[in-house]
């Protein structure tokens, strides 16, 4: 694969994979270095990439596998901005208290979801991935990702409605 083709077809996806990498690693600061490392790995494998039938999918899959490997080696790091919020707990204003409460509730709901449903929902709603990208990154069939996403959304919706419809 020539440098220009790599730049157009692979490197251009750096910004697309960044949200997922930052979310999975839990630290925006390190995510930039991580995306760089992922791209360097792909650059080293560029000769094999030329004949790959789905280069975009391979990039997403490589990025996810890289994050999973990193997470196996050590626990995700806390985003300094979130840490700052935790330190200032006693000084939090009303919005911050609400936000903290909402985060705690939603994260506990997400934890109850089956892992595939949770991951697909995060990739779609938080990372803004297309279905094809999710399918490639998770090695699932496209229709299956839709089914998983639908179940997850409905489950989260029901739980949130239960909690917030009384307010």
């Amino acid at each position: 694969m020539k440098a220009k083709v790599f730049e157009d077809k692979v490197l251009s996806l750096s910004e697309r994979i960044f949200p997922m990498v930052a979310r999975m690693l839990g630290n925006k600061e390190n995510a930039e270095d991580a995306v760089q490392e992922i791209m360097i790995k792909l650059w080293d494998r560029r000769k094999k990439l030329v004949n790959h039938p789905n280069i975009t999918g391979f990039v997403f899959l490589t990025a996810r596998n890289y994050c999973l490997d990193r997470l196996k080696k050590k626990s995700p790091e806390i985003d300094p901005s979130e840490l700052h919020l935790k330190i200032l707990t006693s000084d939090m204003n009303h919005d911050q208290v609400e936000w903290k409460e909402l985060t705690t509730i939603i994260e506990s709901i997400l934890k109850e979801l089956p892992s595939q449903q949770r991951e697909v929902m995060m990739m779609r709603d938080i990372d803004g991935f297309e279905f094809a990208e999710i399918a490639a990154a998770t090695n699932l069939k496209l229709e299956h990702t839709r089914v998983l996403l639908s179940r997850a959304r409905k489950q989260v919706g029901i739980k949130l409605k239960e909690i917030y419809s009384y307010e």
Partner: protein
Amino acid sequence: MSSDKHDLVNKYLAAKTTVEEEEALFNSEDQPSGMKEWSTYVKQKRKKAPAHLNDKIWASIQTRKKRRQRFLMGLSGMAASIAIILAVVVARPTEDDLNDHEKEVLFNEAMSMFPDEKNIVAKKDILYEDDAVIIYRVSE
């Protein structure tokens, strides 16, 4: 909530919306309970890539590429130097490795090929002799 919005929410729950439709839904003011909270969470949790990320990564790949090329050049230079040194060592003319004793033995062996030399000298009748030349006659 309008019926259009209601349909969109149902479409969203069935995972049949596009990314753009979902974006519009998350940013909408008029949302049902549950959806509103999820939208707030989504918008807060989203992480945007830093500006010029692609350019930074491309620059670092290029730097790495140049560094590797320099390393390979250095390595091949070093290999060439070693090859030249080895060639010089291997092709060096061999030294005469006979010591004095061995030379003497060989000389004596050569001399032994002329067994009558002493007799010849004893029997010789010198006709002329100077520093450079001896002319003699031998009677057999």
